[in-house]
C-alpha cells in the first residue's frame, strides 16, 4: 500500500492551520489511490503537536526531532529526505509557504523525486500523479506529470482545501535525521505596533492598490473609506512604498481579513498573494480600468472604470 506523507508546518510552538488543509487534501486522495496518510512533524519540540494533527483520516504520525525548534532549511530538508528514503511515499505534500520555499526546492534539486510548487489540483492518471498549477500570472493552468519518478513532492497552495476536522488516534513513531545548519534563528520580529486599527477584525474593507498612482491620492481614499464606514486597507505596493503602514496590508505577507464580509477593491489587480488575504470574503466588489484584471474573476460585482471618477461620484452618496 502506498503512502501519502504530509509535512506539517508549525511556528512558535503552534501548528499552522494550513497543515490541516493538506491533511484534507491527502484524505481526498487516500481512497482513490488506495493510500495511507502519514503526517510528519519536524523540529526539536514538534512531538508536542501530535494532538493537533490527530484529525480524521490520519493513519500515522512520524516525528523527526532535529536540533532546531524553529524552521532551519538544511535540517528540514535532511529530515524530509530521511522520511522519503525510509518510507518511500508515493506522494509528499507540504504547504506552499515561506518556510517551504526555503527547503522544499532542495528535495527537487536532488533529481530523485518529481517536484512541483504552488499546486492546487492533484489527481492520479494511470497510477501516476498529475498536479495542476497556474502559469502566466494565472491566465493559464498547466497539468504537470513526473515521468519515471516513484516519489512526487508537491507544495500546495493554501486555501484550496478546507481544514480537516474530526479526530483520530494515529500511531506515533519517530525517525532520526541531522544536518549541518548553515544559518541560525536569532529572533522573530513582530510587525510594528502602529496603534492603528486591526484589519483582521474589520467587517467592511475598502482597499487601494497601484491604481491610486501617487501618495498624494491616499488621503482622498482614506476620507472615502471613512465616509462609507469602511476600514482602509491596501495591497503590497502601497505598503512597500510607505504610503500606508504594513498593518493595513491585505495578503499573504500582510493580513488575512478573516472577519470581513464586504470588500471594495479599488485599483487592485488581484495577484495571488493579495487574494490569499481576501478571496474568502463573501461580497467582493472591484473597480479597475483593466477588464482582464484577475480581481474580476473573484468579485461579485465589478466596475470597469477609473477609480478617481467612481470615488468622486461615490462620495456624493455618503455626505
Amino acid at each position: 500500500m502506498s503512502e501519502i506523507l504530509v509535512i506539517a508546518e508549525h511556528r512558535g510552538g503552534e501548528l499552522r492551520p494550513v497543515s490541516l488543509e493538506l491533511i484534507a487534501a491527502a484524505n481526498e486522495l487516500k481512497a482513490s489511490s488506495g493510500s495511507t496518510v502519514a503526517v510528519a512533524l519536524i523540529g526539536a519540540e514538534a512531538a508536542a503537536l501530535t494532538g493537533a494533527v490527530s484529525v480524521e483520516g490520519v493513519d500515522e504520525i512520524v516525528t523527526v526531532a532535529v536540533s532546531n525548534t524553529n524552521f532551519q532549511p538544511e535540517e528540514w530538508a535532511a529530515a524530509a529526505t530521511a522520511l522519503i528514503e525510509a518510507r518511500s511515499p508515493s506522494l509528499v505534500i507540504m504547504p506552499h509557504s515561506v518556510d517551504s520555499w526555503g527547503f522544499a526546492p532542495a528535495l527537487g534539486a536532488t533529481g530523485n523525486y518529481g517536484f512541483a510548487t504552488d499546486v492546487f489540483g492533484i489527481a492520479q492518471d494511470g497510477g501516476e500523479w498529475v498536479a495542476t498549477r497556474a502559469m502566466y500570472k494565472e491566465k493559464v493552468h498547466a497539468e504537470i506529470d513526473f515521468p519515471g519518478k516513484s516519489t512526487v513532492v508537491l507544495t500546495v497552495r493554501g486555501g484550496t482545501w478546507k481544514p480537516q476536522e474530526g479526530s483520530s488516534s494515529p500511531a506515533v513513531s519517530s525517525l532520526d535525521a541531522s544536518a549541518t545548519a548553515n544559518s541560525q534563528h536569532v529572533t522573530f520580529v513582530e510587525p510594528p505596533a502602529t496603534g492603528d486599527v486591526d484589519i483582521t477584525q474589520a467587517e467592511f474593507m475598502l482597499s487601494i492598490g497601484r491604481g491610486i498612482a501617487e501618495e498624494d491620492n491616499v488621503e482622498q481614499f482614506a476620507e472615502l473609506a471613512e465616509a462609507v464606514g469602511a476600514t482602509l486597507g491596501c495591497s503590497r505596493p502601497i505598503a512597500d512604498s510607505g504610503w500606508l503602514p504594513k498593518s493595513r496590508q491585505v495578503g499573504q505577507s500582510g493580513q488575512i481579513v478573516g472577519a470581513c464580509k464586504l470588500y471594495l477593491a479599488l485599483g487592485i489587480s488581484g495577484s495571488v498573494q493579495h487574494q490569499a488575504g481576501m478571496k474568502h470574503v463573501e461580497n467582493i466588489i472591484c473597480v479597475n480600468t483593466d477588464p482582464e484584471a484577475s480581481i474580476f474573476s473573484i468579485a461579485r460585482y465589478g466596475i470597469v472604470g477609473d477609480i478617481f471618477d467612481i470615488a468622486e461620484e461615490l462620495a456624493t452618496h455618503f455626505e
Partner: protein
Amino acid sequence: MKILVAIKQVANLDDEFEIREDGKDVDPDFCDFEINEWDDYSLETALQIRENNGDEGEIVVVTVGPDDAEDELRKCLGKGADRAIRVWDDAIEGSDQVAIARILTKVVEQEAPDMVFMGVQAADNAYAQTGMSVAKQLGWPHAAVVSSLDYTPGASTATARRELEGGLEEEITVNCPAVLTIQLGINEPRYASLRGIKQAAAKPLDEISHGDLGLSDDEVGEAGSVSRVRKVFVPEKGQAELIEGTPAEQAARLAEILKELSGA
C-alpha cells in the same frame, strides 16, 4: 568582492492569446517580455552593497534564456552591473526549474562569487524554487525571502530578515558565501541613467551554451528535469456582474449595493 545576480525575463500574456500546437505552452507570439520585478530588487541589493564597500567589487548578472533575454541583461548593465552572461542553446528548451538551476549552479561554480542573489520568485509562473535549488546543488548556505540584509563583503556571516506570513519577520544569521532570494520592498530599485544606458552597450555580455559549462545533453531540457508540462489550458473563471453606465450611474448603483451589504 564579487556578487552574482541571476535574473529572469518574464512573459506577460496578451489579453487574447493562443495555445501552442502541441498544447504544452502558450504561443510566444502572444507574449510581451520584461525583467522579473523581483530581480530589480536583487540587483539593487548588490549595487548598494558595492556602494557601501567604497565602490569596490564586481557585479555579474546571468540569465538562462533565448536571444530576447539579452535586453534584460543590458538593462542591468545600464544600472551598474559590470558584466553579463547569457546561457542558451536549443537543448535547454523544455528545462524545468531543476534543470535551469543546474545550469546556474555551473555558472556560479565558474564565477566563484562571494554572494548569489536571486528573486524570491518570477512574476509569470511563480515557482519560488530556482534560487534554493541552486543553493542545494552548490551545497551553499542559503535563505529564502530575504526582506532586509546586513552584509559586509568578506564577512563570514550575514544577518538577514526573512519575511514570513502575516507581517511577521524572522531574523537569522547565515554563513557566507550564500545564496539568498530577495523579496520585493527590501529597497527602492534605481532607474538606469542615460549615461549608464550608453555605457551598457560597451560592457561585456558573454553568450554560452550548456556544453561550455560542462553539462551533457541529458542534464538539461526535458531529460534533465523532474517535472514536465503535459498540457496547458484556459481555466474556467468566475466573472463579476458588471455595473454599466456613466461613472455617475455606476457610482449610484455601487452606493446602493454598499449600503445594502454593509447594513448601513
